[in-house]
């Protein structure tokens, strides 16, 4: 019969232990897993990004129902173990007794709540589990809500930054003289404080909390010095205390934590303990790296294998987006210690190494933390640094003379250098797994080595290692599925639509075995585009699969009104057009008229019901939709060119208008913006567009793959052509190639980087026959696309979109 293993606490340590336990495929135990939280194991570290809205809970689940089922783990989530009877070898919970042969305590820690009046008021939260995070998010929803975070340590600051990014007014109260005094020296603490204050977070050091005030719920925090900070939410992040209650009651040997030996066994040979609830050689840990070691040792002990836990050095990083902070080891001052400090105030960099006998004892890095892993490696090895002393502080890249780039620096790391601090994974293990197991994606590396699977701050390093090991075979986007509804990636879906001649969304979902009944808001718009592009004449556009903007042909605004941007070909307008716009604005009481960055005019705040009438009026003046809402051709900006400008070489305005008139109405994977400048002075900013033309004396220089939004990137030069006709043909061919190949929502610059600039050059510039084919296919699809959506709707199409189904008066209802 299999032995009964009961695990108390479904946290980070126990999840890892179970993985190790099942590793060799033998199932020696019937496992029952108790968790006080109403959910399974998840990556607690990542609660900070969840609070900041950068991740969602699904992203941080480490073990899901399927995993437990596959390993036959009986899950008892939401059930607290209240008592252990060591004699009878049973644990007690709400549901009664559960017997065990072996028991593992992994109860983590409890947040420390400072004993001041008002600490029990609603609105006072710790920062420990998902419930806390959800309560904080809810509090942040209230407009103008204020938060006071008590505690300026790692946890408190992550909470403060996240709440601030959600729009709350945030004050951090810290008892000590500078922030994160356990990890930082005063100078780095000061830099950090300045950074946080720059984000609008108020920091109050040496703040002694006297009471939390409020009538029925927290309303303010009162300090000993009489200061009062109003607060809708009070977050206590002052520290943690090992959760040992059931162990104490059961008479186990407990000091600050549950005392264990090197095999993780407590004073009772059948009871093990791991995680933050444990004390080993007088140390209690609060970071995951040592806890994972414990998990591994405990799993071995349970399987009656030899393993030993040894104390480890830990390094910390603050997980606040945009703040780089790293600290490791011990950096208190001391007579026998020396230090090396580098400050670059302008660049916001501060680095400090504490040395003793030519060995690194501690490191604090602020601003530039790239060398954290390298210093930490030297520290752990106790390496003698006398030879490199002069350049040590500049980091690894400066060692051995010339400056290396970051990839070369990673290449130069020894195999035993630690890359992932949380999971203690060294470089050799990662590169080894990549080659031996043929791993090609970040997810696969995470699954096999655990590197970057916890706090994620080493993801960049891991990717660099993949790049180094795999070379061009490493394609970070390799098989990312379109969305949760399918395992297929965008490219496979496109290929299969073509190969199987799939012509409707239901057909795609059926044939390609979609996992949901009718897709989701991610895949449906993508499929709709792929079908429009593939079968321009046959496919009936599914408007219900388009994002609202493309369905109603206007941009939705935050208050539910819309904006209307008519085309102004090449940015040129006339008195008649301007008059028509002025009339419409007055007639429909449109609150704002704005000149856009795309050389045209935006009318903002139009009521949805008014849209068809607004369009009808604009249509009378000859305006058509500007597609400012579309994954399609947006604007073609121009400059005044040879017609007016003393430097102009060609008719840039004319060419811009010609391109826009030729290409408007086409749907594309992501928006497409163009510009034509009349000379290299480039007044139309053509070199940061998806496609740009710079006119020169000898012809037209065609540029592509620029960006000036989320990323800024100058264009690549496609080539020079002699005539306007040729320029148009090349541009059209380029866009058609992009339309046929790119993934939905992928801008030209991303697609081009993936495909290779030379390949594109070859297909649309050099291979003239190919160019013509692309051109012809575009022209064919335009026959069905160049229909002004506004005039259609002004004359009644999709009326249901713009009118309520019913308008009821309250009296009638009564």
């Amino acid at each position, binding site marked *: 019969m299999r032995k009964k293993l009961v695990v108390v606490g479904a946290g980070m340590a126990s999840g890892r232990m179970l993985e190790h336990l099942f590793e060799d495929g033998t199932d020696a135990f019937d496992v029952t897993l108790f968790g006080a939280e109403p959910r399974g194991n998840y990556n607690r570290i990542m609660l900070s990004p969840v609070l900041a809205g950068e991740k969602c809970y699904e992203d941080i689940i480490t073990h899901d129902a399927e995993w437990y089922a596959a390993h036959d783990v009986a899950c008892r989530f939401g059930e607290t173990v209240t008592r252990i009877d060591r004699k009878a070898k049973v644990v007690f919970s709400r549901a009664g007794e559960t017997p065990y042969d072996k028991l593992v305590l992994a109860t983590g820690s409890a947040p420390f709540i400072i004993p001041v009046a008002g600490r029990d008021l609603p609105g006072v939260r710790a920062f420990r589990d998902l419930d806390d995070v959800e309560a904080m*998010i809810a509090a942040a929803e209230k407009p103008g809500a204020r938060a006071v975070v008590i505690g300026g340590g790692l946890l408190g600051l992550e909470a403060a930054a996240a709440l601030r990014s959600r729009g709350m007014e945030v004050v951090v109260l810290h008892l000590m003289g500078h922030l994160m005094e356990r990890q930082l020296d005063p100078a780095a603490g000061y830099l950090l404080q300045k950074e946080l204050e720059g984000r609008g977070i108020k920091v109050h050091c040496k703040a002694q909390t006297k009471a939390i005030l409020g009538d029925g719920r927290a309303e303010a925090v009162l300090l000993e010095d009489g200061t009062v900070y109003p607060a809708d939410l009070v977050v206590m992040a002052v520290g943690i205390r090992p959760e040992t209650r059931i162990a104490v009651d059961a008479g186990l040997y407990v000091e600050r934590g549950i005392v264990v030996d090197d095999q993780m066994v407590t004073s009772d040979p059948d009871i093990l303990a791991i995680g933050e609830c444990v004390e080993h050689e007088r140390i209690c840990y609060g970071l995951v790296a040592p806890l994972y070691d414990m998990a591994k040792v405990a799993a071995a002990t349970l399987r009656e294998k030899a393993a030993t836990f040894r104390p480890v050095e830990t390094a910390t990083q603050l997980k606040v987006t945009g703040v780089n902070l790293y600290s490791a080891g011990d950096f208190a001052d001391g007579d026998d210690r020396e230090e090396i400090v580098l400050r670059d105030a302008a660049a916001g960099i501060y680095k400090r190494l504490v040395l003793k006998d030519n060995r690194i004892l501690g490191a604090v890095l602020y601003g530039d933390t790239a060398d954290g892993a390298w210093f930490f490696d030297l520290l752990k090895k106790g390496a003698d640094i006398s030879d490199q002393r002069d350049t040590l502080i500049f980091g690894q890249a400066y060692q051995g003379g010339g400056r290396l780039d970051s990839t070369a620096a990673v290449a130069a790391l020894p195999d035993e250098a630690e890359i992932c601090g949380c999971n203690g994974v060294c470089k050799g293990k990662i590169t080894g797994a990549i080659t031996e197991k043929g791993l090609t994606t970040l997810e696969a590396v995470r699954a096999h080595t655990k590197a970057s699977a916890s706090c994620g701050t080493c993801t960049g390093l891991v990717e660099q290692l993949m790049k180094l090991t795999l070379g061009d075979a490493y394609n970070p986007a390799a098989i990312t599925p379109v969305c949760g509804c399918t395992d297929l990636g965008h490219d496979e879906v496109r290929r299969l639509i073509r190969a199987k001649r799939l012509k409707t969304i239901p057909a795609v979902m059926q044939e390609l075995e979609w996992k949901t009944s*009718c897709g*989701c*808001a991610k895949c449906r718009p993508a499929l709709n585009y792929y079908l429009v592009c593939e079968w321009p004449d046959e496919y009936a556009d599914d408007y219900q699969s388009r994002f609202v903007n493309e369905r109603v042909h206007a941009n*939705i605004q935050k208050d*539910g009104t819309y904006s209307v941007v008519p085309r102004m070909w090449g940015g040129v307008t006339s008195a008649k057009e301007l008059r028509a716009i002025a009339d419409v604005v007055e007639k429909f009481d449109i609150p704002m008229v704005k000149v856009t960055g795309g050389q045209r005019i935006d009318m903002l705040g139009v009521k949805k019901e008014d849209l068809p009438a607004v369009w009808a009026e604009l249509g009378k003046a000859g305006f058509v939709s500007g597609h400012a809402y579309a994954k399609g051709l947006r604007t073609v900006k121009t400059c005044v060119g040879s017609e007016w400008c003393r430097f102009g070489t060609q008719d840039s305005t004319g060419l811009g208008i010609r391109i826009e008139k030729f290409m408007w109405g086409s749907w594309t994977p992501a928006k497409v913006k163009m510009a034509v400048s009349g000379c290299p002075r480039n007044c139309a900013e053509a070199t940061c567009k998806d496609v740009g033309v710079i006119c020169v004396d000898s012809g037209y220089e065609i540029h592509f793959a620029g960006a000036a939004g989320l990323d800024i990137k100058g264009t690549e030069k496609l080539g020079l052509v002699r005539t306007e006709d040729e320029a148009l043909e090349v541009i059209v061919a380029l866009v058609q190639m992009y339309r046929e190949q790119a993934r939905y929502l992928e801008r030209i610059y991303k697609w081009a980087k993936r495909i290779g600039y030379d390949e594109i050059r070859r297909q649309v510039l050099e291979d003239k026959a190919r160019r013509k084919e692309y051109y012809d296919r575009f022209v064919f699809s335009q026959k069905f696309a160049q229909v002004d959506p506004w005039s259609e709707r002004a004359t009644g199409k999709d009326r249901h979109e713009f009118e*309520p*189904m019913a308008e009821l008066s*309250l009296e009638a*209802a009564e």
Partner: protein
Amino acid sequence: MSDHHWQAVGRLDDIPLRGARCVKMGEITIAVFRTADNRVFALEDRCPHRNGPLSQGIVHDACVTCPLHNWVISLETGLAQGADEGAVRTFPLKRDGERILIDLTRAMVMAVEE
């Protein structure tokens, strides 16, 4: 006052499949959704996140994705799905053949409160 105030608001065909239409009542807008399998739901047209007009979102299965920041709301319960937390008011709805009727008791209370 009786317990229900059933009010006809339109016919099934008035609403596009996997789409929605609005019913206005003073300041309140009720979004009436129709799913791919012809089920109909009535929810307040106001996302619990930042009041986005849910009627403008993409309808998939028995959910709608808000057009402003992509929260996914269950049409059956009005609850935000996944990690998001919040609820939209739902209104009892019944069908009489093609006709759609909504119980406005709640809406009337809301209207008075506002």
